[in-house]
């Protein structure tokens, strides 16, 4: 944890990243033509304006997924020790579900689960 090792750490890190980028510029084959540069939607040419406002539904969907994904992540270790702990574990997980269920209820009532 001396000063030299810290600086060496930073230099090596920067060098590796820089090297990867610079090296690929020289080594990678490139051939560009206009058709490759066009935007596309699912393989066919675009229709209408492509620069639309972001639909916030995607964002809400992602956030709610994240919350319940983390809930699932917490359930995995619980599942491992549940058998040894018995009744206490069961009651505890019911409380956990209940608290997160309250959150789901809130999201539901606020209309986050509806699209648009």
């Amino acid at each position, binding site marked *: *944890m*001396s000063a030299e090792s*810290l600086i060496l750490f930073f230099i090596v890190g920067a060098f590796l990243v820089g090297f990867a980028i610079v090296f690929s510029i020289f080594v990678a084959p490139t051939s560009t033509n206009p058709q490759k540069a066009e935007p596309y939607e699912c393989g066919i040419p675009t229709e209408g304006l492509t620069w639309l406002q972001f639909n916030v539904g995607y964002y809400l969907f992602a956030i709610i997924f994240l919350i319940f994904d983390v809930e699932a992540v917490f359930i995995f270790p619980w599942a491992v020790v549940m058998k040894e702990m018995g009744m206490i574990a069961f009651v505890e997980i019911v409380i956990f579900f209940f608290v997160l269920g*309250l959150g789901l209820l809130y999201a539901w009532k606020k209309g986050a689960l509806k699209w648009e």
Partner: protein
Amino acid sequence: MTTIISLTILGVLTLFLGIMKKQSWLLPVILLGLVVSMVLTLRDWNTFSSYYNGMIIVDNVSVAFSMALIFSAFLIFSLAAHYYRGVLRPLDDIYGVMIFALLGAVMMTSYGNLIMLFLGIETLSIALYVLAGSHKEAVTSNEATLKYFLLGSFLSGFLLFGIALIYGSSGSFDLGRISAFVTSCAGIYPPMFLAGLFLLIIGLAFKIAVVPFHFWAPDVYEGTPTLLTAFMATVVKTAAIIAMYRFFTHTFHGIHGVWDTTIWVMAALTILLGNLTGLYQPNLKRMLAYSSISHSGYMLLAVVAFSAMSDNALLLYTLSYSIATILAFAILILIREAHGNDYFSSLNGLAKTNPSIAFCLTIAMLSLAGIPPLAGFMAKYYLFTTALEQGLLWLVIVAIAGSAISVAYYFKPIMAMYLKESNGIKLMVETPYKVSIFFMALLVVLIGILPFLVIGLL
């Protein structure tokens, strides 16, 4: 811990009251809930306890400052009825987010572990990014929230990196173990540790808005809806300064010689720059923003001058500053509504149209300037005494110079109110709002005359 739990329940309750479409119950429930939280917090007085293996520490300092924070939030919520009276859209999310921001602030007063500190800061910050932009139609509000979010996230990154480096060198997030590591180093500190310490200082300095990390504050304060600016200027600042105070004095005290010059310089620069720039502000809101920047500088004095008295000094200072600032913002809200802007010209002749409101604003300005016998003077005096006891003569002289400069801009509203002719627009105030304003003015005078109510607690 009961504080945190009660505030969480209150926040969730607020949100659910919103779902159940009981908008009229919101404010009464919140005010009642805050009083209940204060009572529950008081029950923890003089008990020293720690939870979750020392992650949350509840001692007298955290109880006192949690009380101060909840009380400031209580005062702000008492103004919310008038501020949001014409708003049609449901308010439960704004109030809920404010409660959660308060929760984050309380967590910042009682942490025993750097992860809890980060948790508290992020809870507070993210809630505030939302609140800053809550006025969706106004462009200034959008600008404020974007600036705050981008800069805040960037600096939270610094904070986190600092925590990581400290963990890397000391082997623990716990404040006690880091303190033990500091003493075991015996003068030879690993560079990684020092780098982490300074990154931590930078991250927290952003939150308090001290020079040179203060550039976000005036624009963000000006763009945010005024009630929430009051929240930012008082609750956030108090929470951040007590967080800084806690980890400096409990953990890094042994390493005093390393960081005190930095904090010393930051404090001096903040006091001078904040006060000098405040002289040039054209409107009251920006002036209050720069005044709050300079007050952060004074609060840093308590951090540098650690002694037995300094937590008392800090408590008195944050309390008197918060109450005076909320009072000033409360009257600012009235002026903005009546005149549409808050340039000093809108204050002209207020002493004739609304004499009692003008008097309360005078009390707020004089207290912030530090004129006896108001609370601000006792707070500054106590702070200067603490600093002089530790031998920081030059810093006190800088602070005195800053006070002298600040009188100039605190007098601008007073002069406008009493000495200029008004254009006849009278402020419309409802009685509950007036009661809040008078109560706050009374508190400022009372704490000034009877400071022993606050001093001697810790």
